């Protein structure tokens, strides 16, 4: 058994490039997404249309320029408004009335094609223009952003990327490597050896499990020290749930490798149960509550959804294990079902 594991380890260690790719890519994903990607709407391009460039208008423009939500793009003539919106030079145009100084009347023309930007710019423009930020402060409303005071989207992405990377390494890489042995015929050679067949599969999985574990450590270190993700629910709990998820992913990989005969099929099937559901059904970008009822069951089935949910609670909201019992329960149940099915299927195939 240990000699088999050694063989698999050597395979991976000798293949420097693969090793590099597997260790460096998660790191780069975390860093890039952590620092750049944001679902938050900022830097909205605003143009102003004003017949009289009075003091009040100038003052309103100043307030917009000062806000981090807007990128002021200058004045525009009434006739060119449509073109500016259409070519994307502006996402919003504020049209001040002739008598703005007196009446305070203005109109907002928004590029509704980009729905969230339109909504956000309306809300922010209204609050900047109608009374000015000053009044809001005077009114004594204090806003607290709980759990994520700087409103960083990266907090959301870290669990999402973890959910995907581990599937990629544990499920996809193992299934491809098992199916490859099937394709080249070396699997037969291993199967006629006196080692129990199931150990052969297990020994193929262990190196990938180790690799994912190294990735887990890298990701957690980066998340905590570089991206300031709080890991408030305790590192131990995060690792515990992650290891459960890794085993689940391995079971999935084993299942896939049992069902398919070619590397391409292994890859496409893994991709279909991975990339698509992770992006669209896991709540990574799109809130699961917006999914229509008829399709919501898909999100109840895909494992990353539960893992990402649990990670979000543990890493950001800081609940303890009791708070993620449901998620852990579902993951555990799925692991048991998949593992049993995969082992049974594997033994059936041998006979």
């Amino acid at each position, binding site marked *: 058994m240990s000699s088999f594991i050694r063989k698999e380890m050597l395979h991976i260690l000798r293949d420097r490039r693969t090793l590099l790719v597997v260790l460096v890519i998660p790191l780069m994903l975390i860093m890039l997404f952590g620092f750049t990607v944001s679902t938050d709407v900022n830097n909205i391009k605003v143009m102003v249309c004003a017949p009289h460039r009075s003091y009040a208008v100038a003052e309103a423009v100043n307030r917009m320029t000062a806000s981090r939500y807007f990128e002021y793009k200058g004045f525009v003539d009434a006739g060119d408004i449509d073109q500016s919106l259409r070519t994307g030079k502006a996402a919003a145009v504020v049209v001040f009335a002739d008598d703005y100084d007196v009446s305070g009347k203005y109109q907002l023309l928004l590029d509704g094609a980009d729905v969230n930007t339109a909504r956000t710019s309306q809300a922010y423009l209204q609050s900047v223009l109608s009374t000015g930020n000053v009044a809001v402060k005077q009114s004594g409303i204090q806003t607290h952003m709980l759990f*994520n005071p700087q409103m960083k989207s990266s907090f959301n992405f870290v669990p999402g990327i973890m959910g995907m990377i581990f599937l990629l390494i544990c499920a996809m890489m193992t299934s491809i490597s098992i199916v490859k042995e099937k394709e080249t015929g070396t699997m037969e050679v291993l199967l006629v050896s006196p080692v129990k067949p199931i150990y052969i599969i297990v020994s193929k999985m262990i190196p990938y499990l180790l690799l994912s574990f190294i990735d887990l450590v890298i990701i957690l270190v980066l998340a905590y020290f570089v991206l300031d993700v709080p890991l408030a629910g305790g590192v131990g709990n995060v690792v515990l749930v992650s290891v459960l998820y890794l085993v689940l992913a391995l079971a999935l990989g084993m299942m896939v490798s049992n069902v398919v005969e070619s590397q391409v099929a292994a890859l496409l099937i893994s991709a279909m149960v991975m990339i698509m559901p992770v992006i669209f059904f896991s709540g990574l970008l799109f809130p699961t509550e917006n999914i229509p009822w008829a399709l919501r069951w898909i999100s109840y089935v895909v494992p990353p959804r539960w893992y990402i949910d649990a990670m979000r609670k543990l890493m950001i909201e800081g609940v303890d294990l009791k708070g993620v019992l449901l998620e852990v329960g579902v993951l555990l149940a799925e692991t048991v079902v998949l593992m049993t099915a995969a082992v049974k299927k594997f033994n059936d195939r041998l006979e």
Partner: protein
Amino acid sequence: MSALGFLIKKEFIQFRRNRFVSRLVFLLPIIVMLIVPLVANMDVKGVNVAVVDMDRSGLSGRMVSHLEASKQLRARLVVTDYRQAYDLLEAGKVDVIVTIPEGCEQTQMLGRMPEIKIDANAVNATKSGLGSQYVIASLTPLLTDGSAVLSPSVRYFYNETLDYRFYMIPAFIIIIIMLICCFIPALNLVLEKEKGTIEQINVTPVSRMEFTLSKLIPYWIIGMVALTEAILTAGLVYGLWPEGSLASIYWAALVFALAMSGFAIAVVNISDTMQQCIFVMFFFVMLFMLMSGLLTPLDSMPQWAQWLTVAFPPRWFVGIMRAVYLKGTTLAELAPDFLALAVVATFFCIVAIVTYRKQK
């Protein structure tokens, strides 16, 4: 027929014989267009608010009714215990807590500003940001002297009902073309490498250009078929037909498909095994999806990251697609984006040809 013709014919025969892949490619656009627009909805509607009313005065009652009247806010639970509201927030039942302190009305009557507290669950940054803005907007008139607040008339262009699906459909079409034009040629080429058939080609006088083109052109055509399927599905199911000219969409899509398959072939050329190739490919597809403005706003990224995305083909294509599809912008108005896309496409195709080595 030249050598290129024979090679392309071979690609089509292989594509047809591989039932699994060819069916997948033909069904993918339809399935994605049927399901994903329903699921991928980042629309912020119905922000759930809990009000912790410790004042129980006329003013706090008016505040609650103002919040209730707001179109964007929902399920206003009035509780008296902050702890209770916090538990609801932690359980995800509520997004924003508004706390009205004791003696709020009295403070206002004394001519001072009462202190209202808003706590938003910022795990979802968009929702909490917008949600607290909505709360502030609906409470402000009550807390200032009330008369000064004038709401402007607002007009949404191009998508009057603010249907989020319309915004995302062009992006999903791009994702479909991207998946097909990246993964299918890459898989095909990596298999030739693993099976050794590429060796048999390398020992023939076929030029690098011919061989690379024989991998690009079929997926170019397949990509256009997928585009057509996606446009038809979007139109028939969601009633969204392109506002601008179809010719502009197809022109831009042709260039984009070329850029993506050129990129995919370059990745295969520099990787040795299928595992490597797929891992690298996933990395870039993730970058393309999340950093090109397909799913998240491009303008929100830091400047250096925006510069990085200059080399991402979807970054240019998504701008063109959204503008043409939703706003009816002409290709002439989008000339700079189109030019940039063409430059990126040429670059990736050259890289694909140059990185292909017949002789080692």
